[in-house]
């Protein structure tokens, strides 16, 4: 699956799309593919202070449990409640399925993330 170029990526396999002062965060196709069938997403609490590079939430698949790291710092203002009922959405359409929206406390952090092209190269190196 192509990594959309309307957003930035982290080397920990999260994507981050900026909408004004809000960063919309999800996991990449590579991440969902590596995790295999996702059965549960432990969503962050709204109001949580996320820190760039620190744990944002936890996703559970049939074979492993992994942290999702926050690509930027700020307050979690909304979480995708749909994932409570239907966590498999992350497998079906990872780039259309967001996990959390973060009101950025330091928008410059976006600059330290990589582009779709760079991320594509990075993932190629892992395969």
């Amino acid at each position, binding site marked *: 699956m192509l990594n959309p170029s309307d957003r930035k990526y982290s080397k920990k396999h999260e994507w981050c799309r900026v909408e004004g002062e809000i960063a919309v965060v999800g996991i990449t196709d590579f991440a969902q593919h590596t995790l295999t069938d996702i*059965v*549960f997403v*432990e969503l962050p*609490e709204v109001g949580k202070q996320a820190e760039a590079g620190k744990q944002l939430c*936890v996703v*559970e*698949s*049939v*074979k*492993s*449990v992994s*942290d999702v790291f926050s690509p930027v710092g700020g307050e979690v203002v909304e979480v995708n409640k749909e994932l409570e009922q239907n966590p498999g959405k992350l497998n079906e359409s990872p780039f259309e399925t967001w996990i959390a929206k973060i009101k950025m406390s330091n928008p410059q952090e976006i600059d330290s993330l990589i582009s779709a092209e760079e991320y594509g190269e990075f993932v190629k190196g892992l395969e």
Partner: protein
Amino acid sequence: MRFVPHSEKEKSEMLKEAGVASIGELFKDVPEKVRVKDKLKIGEPLSELELRREIEGLAAKNRSAKQLSLFLGAGCYNHFIPATVPAITGRSEFYTAYTPYQAEISQGMLQAIYEWQSWVCILTGMDLANASVYDGATACAEAMLMAGSARHRKKALVSKGLNPEYLKVLRTYAGANSVELKEIAIEELEKDLDEDVSCLIVQQPDFFGRVEDLKGIAGKLHEKKALLVVAIAEALSLAFCEKPSEYNADIVALEAQSFGNAMSFGGPHAGVIACKQDFVRQIPGRLVGKTQDIEGKEGFILTLQAREQHIRREKAGSNICSNQALCVLASTIYLSTLGEKGLKEIAGQNRENAKYLSEKLEGLGFELPFGDSFFNEFVAKKQGMREMHAALSEKEIVFGYPLELEFSEMRDCVLLAVTEMNSREEIDALVSELEELL
């Protein structure tokens, strides 16, 4: 397990295979100075007959509940065990199996555990229950951690009515997990209930036998997003008191000994944790689920294992995997034998017998400092308790648990448990002994 000794021939073959000349050489990594060179000072070897005489002689010094007139509970209760329990638990398929979880070969055990979990849900009103943990105290401590991880908070409040042994286990767990544990009186909950509190742990009936009025407690806790954890040390009380779901408990930690397990000088017993569906990801231990195989036939499996340490690793909320499958098998058979009607009948007998003794004691001038709201255990107070207790012991009557052993301010108070095992004649005999003493 059978005892199969190795022959000299086998020993020398094994040594040859291992490439060493003697058994002693296998221990060469043990430093010389710590090795035992002299004979152990434990006397000469005994023949099997001599050994039996010796050990049985020692065992005969024990006084068992069957020989005594027992009015002692305090967390471990003397109840009747129907013959169905040992008849089924004694089957070698159940009795000798270790970690019997492989779905392919352990359908019987998995089904039994599933039935056990279902019984716990029926009795507590909770949505799910785990296979079991070591005992009630462990269940209680694990429930405390569970609440902490569900709420991401580090403070837990515990009612002063908790069994002091449970409290000690909580303290051990709290220390190792940086949980700040605070003992409070339930009436003063508001004083300590803040945004850092994950839960309040309350025993029901409490250690002193009181059936607490917990209506409204959960509401106060939930307002602050804290949870109500209920510890139950006397499982049979569930057939007498309100279900924890009726006062909106979130997590129940239950000691199951009363259901079909002998007191056995304190263990092995079994604990179990039950909770609302909301906390299914935080509940520790094994969970057995019912499912269908590819041919559509009913089957039982371990489920939701991503919670457990072998998958979740350091992120697991608990490292407990052990459960007490045989003890809860006994409980399952016990409950299935009695059914709802039988269970209620026995609970009713417990209450009646306890009430009968409490009234007799009041007639003899004892005080009941906590009144009448008890199930099968209550506190009685009278001057000269220490002497009374000792004098009755001489007559093979265990007159409850002297509370000053644990609570210095409760001098002259005794915690008495009365169950279906205490006949009217036995209670009357106790009363006439007391009449003589007073």
